[in-house]
């Protein structure tokens, strides 16, 4: 920290509490994995996640046996919970990549304590998201030739001018690159676990996973280069993924979907929802595992600020949607926005959305709210609900009153819609808590660079 600046302004809370050494950082994080003692909430949430994942299996099993008639989807609302959930989950994933890649390129050292579990969150959220395009047909085996370009016996190929195919490529690339990025970051930490493991069997498992990493300077030099390149490539990738997701809607001609503001508005919404989810995970984790000295108030406050900024962009998006509806001078667009906001049977969802995403995050302007973990947690929960409602509003209210009044219909979700959705939430919780148990949830080697011992004389640091 520059002492000159520190005398003029109150210094921000540190990114790691003072007093830590290489040994203490290593010991504290690796103990969570190797120590084998877990707090009671870990068991409780693992159990909840397990029940949820089973509910998902039953729901998907019944869906495959019966068909999508078990859902509330109808004509004209052909897309409902399945696509809402897909967009919601994939959006949540975006914060992980933002933290690990974009903040790395911007040299934000506070990302170090939160990037590992945020990346894990990305992977699990993308896994939940990717399930919906497969199951929303009710016949997932058909998805093979609908989605993938491979020479099949029917001689049929996918339509590369369709955003739905772009989406397949974007989501699968995103999942692959996120997994690569995550694994690359894990290699040196897996070597640490290999060397600290008490049992020989465990040491062998971590030894295989760490590929024989030994921390030679030649290794590190290539490692840093490759990691930086991965970050550089993930940055446009993550922006492209939600852009392509928004094309799924904006390329269509449905009023309420056909808007050029969709790509940036969707990307901001994704980061907004994702940061809320990172807060939802970070606040209890730091308490249960006593890692408040690694995930400090500085991290929570910074994340709250990112949430506020992206929330404002999203709010601007809502205002622009209303403005376009009026300014388009198109009777369908005007009717759509009037129906969505005032007249329609689902206007309640629009105002619930404005409350969750437009009003509640404004509390984050105040430092006292930003630094209150209980409020941050509640706020993050409200934002997550808000972002789900946003997709509900965009998808359902646009479809249920389309061009021809004779085809208008209401949409009511069924119990299976909810059990599938909450099932994926359960799967996400299950995967996340297994991850916390078996892998270091904070990057150990990057935390080592933050302790005073790592300071090289005559250098400005890394």
């Amino acid at each position: 920290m520059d002492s000159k600046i520190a005398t003029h302004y109150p210094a921000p809370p540190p990114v790691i509490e003072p007093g830590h050494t290489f040994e203490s950082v290593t010991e504290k994080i690796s103990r969570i994995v190797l120590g084998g003692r877990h707090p009671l909430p870990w068991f409780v949430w693992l159990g909840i996640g397990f029940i949820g994942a089973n509910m998902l299996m039953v729901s998907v099993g019944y869906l495959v046996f019966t068909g999508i008639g078990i859902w509330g989807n109808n004509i004209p609302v052909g897309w409902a919970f399945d696509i809402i959930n897909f967009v919601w989950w994939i959006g949540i994933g975006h914060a992980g990549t933002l933290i690990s890649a974009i903040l790395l390129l911007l040299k934000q050292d506070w990302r170090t304590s939160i990037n590992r579990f945020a990346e894990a969150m990305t992977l699990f959220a993308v896994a939940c998201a990717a399930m919906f395009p497969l199951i929303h047909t009710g016949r997932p085996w058909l998805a093979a030739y609908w989605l993938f370009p491979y020479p099949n016996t029917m001689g049929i190929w996918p339509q590369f001018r369709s955003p739905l195919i772009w989406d397949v490529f974007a989501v699968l690339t995103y999942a692959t690159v996120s997994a690569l990025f995550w694994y690359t970051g894990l290699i040196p930490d897996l070597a640490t676990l290999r060397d600290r493991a008490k049992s020989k069997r465990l040491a062998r498992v971590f030894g295989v996973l760490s590929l024989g990493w030994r921390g030679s300077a030649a290794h590190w030099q290539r490692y840093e280069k490759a990691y930086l390149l991965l970050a550089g490539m993930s940055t446009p990738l993550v922006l492209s993924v939600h852009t392509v997701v928004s094309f799924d809607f904006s390329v269509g001609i449905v009023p309420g979907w056909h808007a050029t503001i969709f790509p940036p508005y969707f990307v901001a919404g994704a980061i907004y929802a994702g940061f809320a989810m990172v807060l939802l995970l970070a606040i209890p984790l730091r308490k249960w595992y006593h890692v408040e000295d690694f995930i400090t108030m500085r991290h929570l406050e910074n994340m709250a600020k990112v949430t506020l900024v992206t929330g404002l962009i999203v709010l601007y998006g809502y205002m622009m949607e209303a403005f376009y509806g009026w300014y388009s001078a198109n009777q369908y667009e005007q009717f759509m926005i009037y129906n969505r906001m005032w007249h329609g049977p689902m206007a309640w969802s629009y105002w619930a959305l404005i409350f969750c995403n437009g009003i509640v995050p404004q509390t984050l302007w105040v430092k006292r709210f930003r630094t209150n973990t209980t409020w941050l947690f509640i706020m993050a929960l409200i934002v997550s609900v808000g972002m789900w409602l946003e997709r509900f509003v965009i998808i359902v209210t646009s479809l249920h009153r389309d061009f021809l009044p004779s085809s208008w219909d209401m949409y009511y979700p069924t119990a299976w819609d909810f059990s599938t959705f909450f099932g994926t939430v359960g799967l996400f919780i299950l995967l996340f808590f297994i991850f916390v148990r078996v892998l270091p949830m904070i990057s150990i080697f990057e935390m080592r660079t933050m302790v005073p011992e790592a300071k090289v004389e005559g250098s400005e640091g890394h």
Partner: protein
Amino acid sequence: MDTAVAQKPLYGLMAEFGDVNALIAATKRARAEGYRRVDAYTPFPVHELFEILQLNDRRVPLFVLIGGILGCLAGFGLCYWVSVMAYPMNVGGRPFNSWPAFIPVTFEVTILLASLTAVLTLIILNGLPMPYHPVFNVKRFADHASQDGMFLTIEADDPKFDLHRTRTFLQQLGAREINEIEP
């Protein structure tokens, strides 16, 4: 230990240092002394060591660039081949080669192949996966290198390597502990 040394040539000598600055100073001295088969081991990346050991593997970005270019060609080629040659479909009289619509897939495949190349390059150029390496025969190294230890090795195939002289040299550098690395 001595009998094992007599049977097989040593891999080299390993010195442990107390902190990262001592390691950097020692590496600098070892290079200045004329040793070339020198390697430094740290539990986190240290940029100063890259400079001293003249490590700058430009093949990593080069391979990533090649991977990206191949991905770009493969992505566009796939869209073109499917939409123009294998399964041409006339939708509203639009051209078969409607290239703007092929950009998203081309972009994604570019990133995919470039990222895969980055990770594969990292693993392969680092000689990983490596199930066995002599440095782990030193107990201090196996216990501390991935946690808090700072190690310097001078390998036996260095033309200047001489067990006695190199050992004395490392002692002069202020090494905390010096070990012979069994092969």
